[in-house]
């Protein structure tokens, strides 16, 4: 279909600046512009979600509900979760993948550039719809980001247009946008690889994005359908999920988690991909067991379709279901463990350089190991029955979503910043950012584990005084984490405006994206590369392509 894109005899002009700042506010079909549009938009929402988190931590610094009223508190955690997932984590990862995948596989753009732009522009649209709910008389949705009925169907304002209504519209649009993205990524990776770029010559990051987007394709329709059915229940009085009218409230939980657990792998897989890119570069060694690491992403995607009931162990599920889903959930740890051990073996005996991206990746790896261990604990039915819906779970998934995913995202931002902007970032500010976020994350989320074991439930605005000690520490960590983004913002804006000019390949990294100019020209490659070897050829001094590499680069590798 759009393979014609490749054959177009357009030749990019490398000396012409590809974009001005105004380009980023247009309906551009350049995957690099769209990638940065995604990243910047979602980062703005990350800041909003972060402010909500600090209001939550402010409320929880004392046992009483005394900072905001309970309805406001409920709106805060609902919006915090919704924004952090649907408007930060998902879009920022799609943004990075948008930027990198075509460059890494040697394509000039995504398979469907216009669809790509449409999918992006839906993000600000549903972001605004969601934020608009603050201006309704009833305020935003207050049923948590799961929106379990019947609570989500209770509508105390009685208005047709209420917070929950806008929330569901936003989630449905987000689902459609992500499905579009999924179709685009899968097609691009299957169809648009450069000559010689076989599947087992693709970087592990591309494998990870491929696996993640396959999950989007089979999982998202369930969530989107669930959201639409809930919307019908809420506004026109159907009875899919309302027990008062004969509906089944637990059915919604199946719809919701059938996607929303695999969604965790949609989120974590690209971050695993980032780790697989970054460790070899800064250890100067090939990725250990590359093929197994690549295939383990697909394995995780496969298993992820059979684990969702582990969110419902306390929901009134029969015993056989609990046991089956316990075992399937535990098996996720096998391909995941393969990756972790492979990264450790990659680092081992290398020539490590602790730059900012490497620090973020190492910090992310350590916190991920911790999150993985608590994850196994949670999959065990008897333990889950005690800690389900407590702060133990909240601590666990924040170690995943901040400790691993957000740390991995920062690693990626710093690593590819010179490529994206043509400028170098400031190393000192980057390291300050790392230490503040590493300490802040642990201070914020580690105390949640003892709180959960003691029985403190999530989503509470007030709690018994026995929980005060750990909550104070968590809140201090939360505020520190909030402050940790300041050096990052300063660094990114300052470096983009007046940073040192970046060479094409400042890290001496191996990969197609490092063979083009920084920032890359509009059509990426003047000449489509012909790939002749596997990725990660560190220490092997063999060229990656038959036509793009200059002699001095090869000399450089020796």
């Amino acid at each position, binding site marked *: 279909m759009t393979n014609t894109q490749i054959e177009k005899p357009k030749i990019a002009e490398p000396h012409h600046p590809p974009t001005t700042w105004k380009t980023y506010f247009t309906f551009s079909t350049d995957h690099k512009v769209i990638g940065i549009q995604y990243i910047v938009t979602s980062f703005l929402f990350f800041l909003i979600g972060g402010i909500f988190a600090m209001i939550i931590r402010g409320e929880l610094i004392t046992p009483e509900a005394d900072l905001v009223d309970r309805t406001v508190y*409920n709106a805060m955690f609902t919006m915090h979760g919704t924004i952090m997932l649907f408007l930060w984590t998902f879009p920022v990862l799609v943004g990075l993948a948008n930027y990198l995948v075509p460059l890494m596989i040697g394509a000039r753009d995504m398979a469907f550039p216009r669809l790509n732009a449409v999918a992006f522009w839906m993000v600000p649209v549903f972001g605004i719809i969601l934020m608009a709910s603050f201006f309704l008389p009833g305020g935003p949705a207050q049923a948590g980001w799961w929106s379990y009925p019947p609570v989500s169907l209770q509508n105390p304002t009685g208005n047709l247009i209420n917070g929950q209504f806008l929330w569901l519209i936003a989630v449905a649009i987000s689902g459609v946008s992500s499905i579009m993205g999924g179709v685009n990524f899968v097609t691009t990776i299957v169809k648009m690889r450069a000559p010689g770029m076989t599947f087992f010559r693709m970087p592990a990051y591309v494998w990870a994005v491929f696996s993640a987007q396959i999950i989007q394709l089979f999982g998202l329709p369930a969530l989107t359908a669930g959201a639409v059915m809930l919307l019908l229940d809420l506004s026109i009085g159907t009875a899919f999920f309302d027990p008062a009218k004969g509906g089944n409230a637990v059915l919604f939980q199946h719809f919701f988690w059938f996607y929303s657990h695999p969604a965790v792998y949609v989120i974590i897989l690209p971050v695993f991909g980032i780790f697989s890119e970054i460790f070899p570069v800064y250890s*100067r060694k090939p990725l250990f067991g590359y093929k197994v690491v690549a295939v383990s992403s697909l394995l995780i995607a496969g298993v992820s379709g059979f684990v969702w009931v582990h969110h419902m162990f306390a929901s009134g599920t029969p015993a056989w279901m609990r046991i089956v889903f316990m075992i399937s959930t*535990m098996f996720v740890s096998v391909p995941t463990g393969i990756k972790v051990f492979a990264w450790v073996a990659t680092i081992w005996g290398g020539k490590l350089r602790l730059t900012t991206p490497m620090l973020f990746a190492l910090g992310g790896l*350590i916190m991920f190991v911790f999150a993985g261990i608590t994850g196994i604990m949670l999959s065990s039915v008897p333990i889950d029955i*005690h800690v389900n819906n407590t702060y133990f779970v909240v601590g666990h998934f924040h170690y995943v979503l901040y400790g691993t995913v957000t740390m991995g995202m920062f690693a990626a931002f710093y690593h590819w910043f010179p490529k994206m902007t043509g400028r170098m970032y400031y190393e000192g500010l980057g390291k300050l950012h790392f230490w503040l976020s590493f300490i802040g994350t642990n201070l914020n989320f580690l105390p949640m584990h003892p709180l959960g074991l003691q029985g403190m*439930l999530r989503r509470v605005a007030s709690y018994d005084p026995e929980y005060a000690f750990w909550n104070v520490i968590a809140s201090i960590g939360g505020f520190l984490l909030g402050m940790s983004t300041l050096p990052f913002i300063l660094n990114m804006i300052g470096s983009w405006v007046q940073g040192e000019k970046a060479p094409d390949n400042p890290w001496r990294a191996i990969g197609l994206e490092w063979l083009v100019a920084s920032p890359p020209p509009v059509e990426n490659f003047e000449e489509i590369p012909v790939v002749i070897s596997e990725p990660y050829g*560190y220490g092997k001094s063999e060229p990656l392509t038959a036509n793009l590499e200059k002699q001095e680069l090869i000399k450089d590798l020796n």
Partner: protein
Amino acid sequence: MKIRNILILIGCAIALTGASLWMGQQAYSWFPPQAAAESKLIDELFSFLVSLGTFIFLGVTGTVTYSIIFHRAGKYDTSDGPPIEGNITLEVVWTTIPILLVLWIATYSYNIYAEMAIQGPMEAMHIHTMASAHAATMESTTEPIEKIEVLAKQWAWVFRYPNQNVTSTELHLPVNRRISLALQSADVLHGFYIPAFRLKQDIVPKQTIDFEFTPIRPGKYRLRDSQFSGTYFAAMQTDVVVQSIEDYNHWLKTAATQKPTPANNQAANEYTQKIKGAFTSGYPTVIPAPPPLVNFPS
């Protein structure tokens, strides 16, 4: 040289195992008191997982830390590391060991689960056919007491003892008896959760869920709503009093003579008088149910 390396590895493994076992023992102190037969089983399983987890965590982070300290590139060293691309033996080992560990953890968890015999609603019919179901219940000393009805509503707990027709907002239970509850919700999803018992079950509207357990330690514990139920969710808590069978029977008899009076209800109180100092939005809320009328208001 080779022998030295092996000795160092063995030394590290012993140190790691020691640290992990110690950590596993610490785990018991992270929980509330063990007030139900089930809580002992869960704490034991958790302690085992903490030991195992500590071993893995220290093993991985120890290796990474060693690399960070000893495998750094010199300032002007631009050379690459050894181009090692993999090692089949190593990869087979680190795939097989996790598989075996997973099977071990799953079997252990399953056994504990079978001993606890926590029932999902669909298991209620089969409970008496499960031989292991009462293993943790000290059956010999007990005759099951009457089934207590638990009603959850926005935002109050009401307990009804049908034989004496006693209602209460505080849950009284005899110690060392198999307790049988019938959980019901009047409106939305709620969760029945007593941290000291390590037990939790969601309550689904229009369904009656049977739930059994055995308290083993007299005392006062907290019962909390564990499934988000709307505005005053956090305030939906009450006390559970575990007492000797004599005290329990005495309490039932006295309560039966009391006239029903409205119980103190935090959600209703807060709704009528706004909390001072808090930022209020004026967002409307579902109106709390009126304070329940019970024989024994807590």
